[in-house]
Every structure is written in C-alpha cells, then in structure tokens.
C-alpha cells in the first residue's frame, strides 16, 4: 500500500464517534407529538385548543377495498365488447348484489349476469382485459391526541402538533401500540422480577412498572387480567417469542395486537432498571401516562416511551432539562455499559485516553476508562457506553 499505510487507515476507519442512543429520562421536559393522517383529510381542532388524550383531532377517509371482476370471462364475450353489456357506467354507484352487467343470447333464452360483490363505485372498465374494478365505500380513519396538551401547530388537512410539559422515559425496545392508563408500581427495588404472583385484579387497566425482568408467565397473566402496559428493565428473548407467537426479525414494532403494551428500558435478559428511571416512575405512581411500544431502530429511530403530562402548576419554577448532545463525555460523567463483558454495569468516566487502544479482540478502538459502582476500574470501547443524564 501507499506511504500512508493500510494499517493506519484501518485505525482511522475505526475511529468513528461513539454514538449514544440518547434515551431520555426526564422529570420535566416539553413533549411535542405530531399527529398526522395517512392521507389528507380534515383537522378537527384549532391552534390553541386544549385537548385530552382520547380526543379525535383529525379524521379522513381512506379508499375502500377494491374488487377486480373479469366481466368478459363471466359473460363469455371479448374484452372489447364489454361496454355494450355493462348496465353501469364509469363512476356509477352500485349496491351489493346489484346486476352490473348482463348478456342475453338466443333471443333472450339464455341470460348471464354479473353481480356486484359489495357496495361501491365502478372505477375501471377495461376493454383490454375485460376487467372492471369496483371500489368499496371509503373507510373513516380517526387520529386521537394520544397525549393531553395544547394544539400548537395545525397542518391543514394533514394533522396537528400537540405540546405538553411532561415527564418522559424512553425505553430501548417495545411491542404493542399506544395506550393510556394510570401507573402502578409492582416492585419496591429496581432489581425485582415481575412474576405472576404480583399481578392481581387491581392491576386491570393499569400500566405496571416492574424491576429487572418480566417473566413469560407474568406476561400471559397480565393480558388475562387486562393490564394495559408493562414497563420493566428486560425480558428473555424466548419469553417474548412465546408471548408474541412469532420471532421478530427486524426491530420495527408497534403494530402487534397482543392485548397489552410492553416496554423494556434496558435490553434482553434480566436487566436492572437504573435507579434514576425507577425512582422517576415511582414518583408518579398512580398518575396517568400515555405509553407507546412502537420501536424502529433503523430509519427514524423511534423508541418506546412513557409520557406523564404535567399540570402547569407542577412545572412552575422548574427548568426544562437540557437535551443530550450525544457527545460530552468527561471525567466524572455517569455512564452505563451497553455490551458484554460488563453489560448493564454503571459507573463514571475515570479517564478518556486520546490514543487508540487495542482491546482483547485486537481491534484498535477509542476507549473510556470507567470506575464502576463496585470500585473496579475497567476499560471499554467508547461505542459500548451511553451517558446517564443526572
């Protein structure tokens, strides 16, 4: 290779900045939610309006199902002949079972009919294929506010943005969609496991906050009991597969219809929820929360969330917590390790060596020296830690 050397280049290539996913755990922040229709429609609220979580803010009508019917085949005629047998014209409305095409032969002795399979409108009459297309009536779609708050922006015909002061916890992964319910603590410490015994009828309609793990049995019982959501540190992959009935290949979730919403804050396996997250949720025990398990790690980075809207009186005098910058590690910064061999360990930055260091795999990487909670000093690639906000 050139004077610049391949090995040097390989080192350079591995110098990528550490990327912290930037999960938010905030006692007070401003949450804005864009509520957008899939296709243009009607916005039902105005800028400045105060909305509740289940209030419909916009609605539209999506085109109905389409039926393709081969009229030429059904009548036994050539495609180009079908217009003369059609009883309905393009854009005509039809009712279910109404005759839409008819052919008489042998002086009316034999008749063949084509009936409408549903209500709808004729959208196509093709003389090339002999097909017609019948579109079912439009289907209404409504979007609710999801979080209570104030409408701060209206996108005409598309949707709105709602804003509220809130406490916000982002999880790392979730399944199940939007829900709204009161929080209920089921653990007194963040390393407790959420087992079926802890789920009783009082959990119905609640969002349960557990500790380090939810077991497969507890998930099943939660659904049976009518629990609206579960927030815990971790879940075993095998339990999640059993719970869903299938294995997730790519992390794009939120559409699952599983009877509850599950949010994990740390990862797969038994994972102690950090004190900060646990204490924050505990301080809102019994309060209303909007939750969403939707996760999309690629293209969009959507993380699951727990939003607890705050009243104006509660936020008086509070200062909004600063946004994470994604960098900003310095000696003393509290961090969490997010990869083996110290996965889940919490500590603070002891030093940030400038030079690349060779780790056990023999890769040259940028590292951080950490003093762990138990006093040990360990060296970890910077890519394998995330900052804990305090």
């Amino acid at each position, binding site marked *: 290779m050139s004077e610049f050397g391949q090995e040097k280049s*390989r080192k350079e290539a591995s110098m990528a900045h550490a990327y912290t996913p930037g999960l938010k755990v905030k006692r007070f922040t401003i949450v804005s939610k864009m509520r957008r229709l899939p296709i243009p429609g009607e916005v039902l609220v105005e800028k400045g309006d105060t909305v509740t979580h289940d209030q419909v803010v916009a609605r539209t009508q999506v085109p109905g199902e389409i039926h393709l019917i081969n009229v030429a085949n059904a009548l036994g005629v050539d495609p180009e002949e079908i217009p003369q047998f059609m009883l309905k014209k393009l854009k005509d409305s039809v009712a279910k079972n109404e005759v839409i095409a008819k052919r008489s032969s042998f002086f009316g002795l034999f008749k063949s009919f084509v009936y409408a399979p549903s209500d709808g409108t004729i959208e196509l009459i093709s003389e090339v294929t002999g097909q017609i297309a019948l579109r079912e009536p439009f289907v209404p779609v409504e979007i609710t506010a999801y979080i209570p708050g104030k409408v701060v922006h209206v996108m005409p015909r598309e949707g709105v943005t709602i804003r509220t002061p809130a406490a916000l916890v982002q999880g790392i992964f979730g399944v199940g969609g939007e829900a709204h319910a009161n929080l209920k603590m089921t653990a007194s410490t963040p390393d407790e496991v959420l087992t079926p015994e802890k789920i009783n009828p009082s959990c119905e309609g609640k969002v349960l906050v557990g500790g380090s793990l939810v077991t497969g049995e507890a998930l099943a019982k939660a659904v049976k009991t009518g629990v609206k959501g579960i927030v815990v540190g971790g879940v075993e992959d*095998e339990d999640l597969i059993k719970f869903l009935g299938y294995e997730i290949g790519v992390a794009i979730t939120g559409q699952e219809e599983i009877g509850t919403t599950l949010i994990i804050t740390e990862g797969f396996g038994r994972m102690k929820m950090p004190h900060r997250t646990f204490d924050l949720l505990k301080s809102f025990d019994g309060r209303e929360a909007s939750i969403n398990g939707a996760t999309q790690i690629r293209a969009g980075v959507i993380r699951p969330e727990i939003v607890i809207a705050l009243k104006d009186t509660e936020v008086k005098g509070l200062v909004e917590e600063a946004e994470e910058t994604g960098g900003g590690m310095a000696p003393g910064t509290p961090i969490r390790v997010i990869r083996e061999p110290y996965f889940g360990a919490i500590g603070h930055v002891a030093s940030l060596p400038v030079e690349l260091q060779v780790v056990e795999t023999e890769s040259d990487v940028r590292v951080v020296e950490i003093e762990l909670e138990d006093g040990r000093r360990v060296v970890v690639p910077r890519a394998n830690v995330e900052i804990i906000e305090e």
Partner: protein
Amino acid sequence: MRLAKFRERRGTTSQRQTKKPEEFEIMLVTDVGSTTTKARLFRKKSNEYRFVSSGEAPTTVEAPFEDVTRGVRNAVREVEELTGLRLLEEEGIVWPRRASGDGVDLYATTSSAGGGLQMMVAGVVKTMTAESAERAALGAGAIVMDVIAIDDGRMPHQKIERIRTLRPDMILLAGGTDGGTITHVAEITELIAAAEPKARLGIGYELPIVYAGNKDARAPISKTLEDKFALKIVDNIRPVLELENTDPARDAIHELFMEHVMSHAPGYDKLMKWTDVPIMPTPAGEGRMFRTLAELRKVNVIGVGLGGATTNVYSIYDGKFVRTVSANLGMSYSICNVLKEATIGNIMRWVPFDIEPVVVRNRLRNKMIRPTTIPQTLEELMVEHAVAREALRLGFEHHKQLARGLRGVQRVRTMGEIFEQSAEEETYIDMMRVDFLAGTGGLLSHAPRRAQSALLLMDGFQPDGLTKLAQDSVFMMPHLGVLSTVHPQAALEIFEKDCLVRLGTCIAPRGTLEKGGNALSFKVEAEGSVVEENVAFGSIRVVPLESGKTAKLVLSPVKDLDVGRGPGHGLETTVEGGVVGLIFDCRGRPLSIPVDPAARRQKLLEWFQAMSAYPENVYERIRSGEVKEGS
C-alpha cells in the same frame, strides 16, 4: 460521458468545474451508509492515484437531525483533521479547488441511508418477465420489497392489499414479449392502478413507475397509469423470450432515483448541490467494482457486501452480471433476522465454546437494539463471526435462486439433462469455476485479522477447487464505483493498489471421505524453497506465501476428491499468495461439521488455530473451560 450528460441536464456545465478528470489531483468521495457515513480522500502523487485518508461519522438521515449533510460534514471533518487540508466551508465542500490549495477537484457520493432504494417489481409470469424485472431492479442497486406476478399464487385482492401497504420508492413494471399478447400486462397494470400505492418519502408526489414491457401495450398502459403516476417508458426487458435486456430499465431507475427519490430524502436536496456527479446507490457502486475486477482479470468473480442492514451478493460468471440483495440479512440492524432465518442451531454450530443458546439469543437481541456497539472480547467477536457466516450462506443461497438461466426458453435438452432434472431450474454458478471470491462491508473490512475474513468467506460460500480470496481494505469499493463513472483510470489504480487486499488462494477439494484419512498431497515451490506435505481429511493447512508472490503448486488428491480435473486427478498450476497465504481447506465439500457439541467445538478450534484466526491464548482458555456461559 455520464458526468457530461448529468451536468448538461442539471445545467451545471462549466459553471463550477472546468477541469478535465485527468487534471484532478484531490478527490473526495463519501458513502452515506445506513449507520455510518464514510469519507475517503484520494490524491494524485508522483503521477499515480492513491488512497490517502478516511473519516467516519454516524449518518444523520434520521431524527433529530434529518439532514444527511451533517453526517457528511462530520466525516469530512475527520479527514480534514488527519490531512491538514481545508475541505469544508459554510456552503458545503470546498469545490472546485481554490488557488490557495483548499478544497477538492471532485466530490461524489453514494448512498444507502434511510433504507436505500426500495422497489416493487411486477411482471406477468413469475419465473419469466417478473424474474427479469427483479434482476434489473437488483442490478440497479435496489432492494426489492416484493415481486407481483399474475401467477404468484395470490388472489387479486391480496395483491392489491400488498401493493397498497408497501410504499415503495419506485415500481418497475414488465410483462410480455414485443408483439405478443397485451392482455396480461394490462391486467397487472390495472391492479397497480387500482391499488394506488403511495411513495415512501414525500407526501403528495407522484410515485415513479418504469414500464419495460411489451411495446405494443404502451398506449393502454399510459392511459391507465399516467394520471396517477410519474410514468417512464423504456425498451422491453424481454423483447423476445431468449433475450434479457435490463440496461434501459436500469438506466431509467438510476435517473428516477436521483430526480424523484433522493430529492425527497432528508438533506439530499442540499447534498445534491454539493456535487455534480449523480448520487449512486451504494450497491451500484460496489457492483461496478466487482465487475471491474472480473473484466480486468477476465475471470469469474463472486463478491459480497456484508453490511449492517443488508447482504449484497454479486456474481460475474461467464460475463453475466447478477446482483442480489438480501434486505434483512445484516450484522447490526438486521442481526436478529439472520438469527430468525438461519435458526439458533445453525449459528451455534460455529461457536467454539460452551454457551447456552438462550444467552446467545439475548446477546444478539441486544446488538439489534444497540446496533453501533462493537465486540470487546474474543468470545463476543466469535459469536458475531458465527452470525456473519450464516448471513453469507443465506445471502448466497438467495443469490443462486436468481443466478440461473432464462426460464421459459425452449431448447433442446440432452438426455443427461432430462435425467438430471437440472438445466435452468438450478443456478449456473459452479463453485469449481469461480476464480475470485471477494468481500467488503464493515465486518469484513474491520476484522482484526485478515485470516478471519478469509475463513468467513470460505465457510459462508464454500468455494471448490482453487479460488483466490480478496477483500476491500478499509471499505472503499462503493466510493471507487462512483469515482469510476467520472475518472475510471483513477478508480482502477486505487482499486488495485489500495483497495483490494489479496488474502491468498483457497484450495478446497470437492467431495467427502466417510472414513477420513489423507485428503491430498501437495508440493509448493516458491523462490527456491519447497514445501511438500499430506493434508488429512477434515483439516486445514496454511502455507504462507506473501501477497504479490506466486508459487508452483502440484496437487494430488485421493480418488474421491476433486480439485478441478475430476475425482482423483492431480493438477499442476501457478498460484498467487496473499496476506494469509495458500489455504489447503480439506474439510470436505459440502463442509461437514460434527454434530456432537464437544467434537464440534474441538474441530472448530482446530480450524481456527490452523488459520491463526484468533490470538493463540484464547484456544487454551476455551479448551480449559475458562470461557463459559455469561463470561
């Protein structure tokens, strides 16, 4: 030519750039990947073009940034820091180069951010026009989300429902041979029109459709589609059954990719103003360089790009170029899809230490949700390598399904073919006739030891006979691919000197020996020294032979094993070395791994050790049982 045409269309001719490509001295190319944006700087020195420096930064296509140029700036800033050159200014890249010496003569980029180019493909018959359309879309660098055909086994309403929910960037529609019936292609067109699919990016813009079917159907198809879509008509992809003509469709896809898709992705409107070279999908850039390798050496090549989200496999075999992309087989975002498709059992067969499958499962899930983390321990690295082998194997299996002869063509079969039931149903790729196997992508390029990449390629593809192994040095194949559209000579020089790392030659006899024993004997003569040995069946032996050196090789396999001249036949030839050397892979083809866990682990360690794939001390640690579950 391509550049001149593009400049003309964009009206940028001579507005900013007046130099001819041969006068370029400093060239900057970026690849905006799904995870990372990689900048590479190339420079002319002593009359030759060389790779100089690289910089990397997280891609910023997503919230909260939603502007790819920020990631590009960060990556280029690293290059600035490393070289001392001034490359950035408020408006973007400093280009063209100033009299002060600041800036570059050329800036170009490839992109796969935000999911790359996602296409839906439609044709009449699944195994004929639809398959040709799929090959054309894949060849253009697209991810094919679904292939719709009249005979794909789904009811019309199911197809409509599927088309509606897909939200592709573009549709390629083919069907019928020129002069043939137009009914079926009209039928599939009506299906698309009825479904009214919406584009993935940008609300309210017309979804582009490329029509490359029966030319006689153009009028009715225009009538059905032109009000609802941005329709572009090109020459038929299968003008006659015996011919596949994918180039016009591919060119149209590239043009629409720039004009419609890229201009709606976050920040690309800005990025497009930074360069006057069309932005190319990353796989299209990669594919160009694998093709270059095949053309330069006049050999059959299989290439692979193992990325974070996808695995792209390329074959240039007897002059035919085929690319496939396995959209959800990758080493970061899609790692759990590899787990799902390969199954945990197949991944575990490559793990050389005792660990519970449930622990591996959880670890892979944790990589999926934190995709930018890297292995710190050797055991973690070995688990990632186990997944990589399966991603390569599955990616290649997928590839072989498309790398096959045109179907539906009537031809006279020999009696042998009739009895073998093979012909066009199977791939035409014969691993014995593949001369070059080359890899690129983060995991392969950044593997701490080159022997690891060599072993991953061998295990994932299982080459037969004599196959040269190579890899991309620091991941710059896409960069060189787009550079070659403007300055082919520079791209070639850099490719040969700085990009292509020769790993060595793999010598793998085809066949198996039930009872084991000696597999072959070899004699290697290089620079006066002679190595003569027997290799036992089930083992690997490496003979060092430096990159750029050749050796005379005499091979004598036992009677059931074939090194290219038929079972039991020996051969004499000249072989090329590499950073690993000559690898005598006598593990058998197909490769068999012991079923018993302890025996399997033992065998894997033997193979890894023979390749010097990992540091020596790890083998003892594993054998002594020090490395166990959760360690």
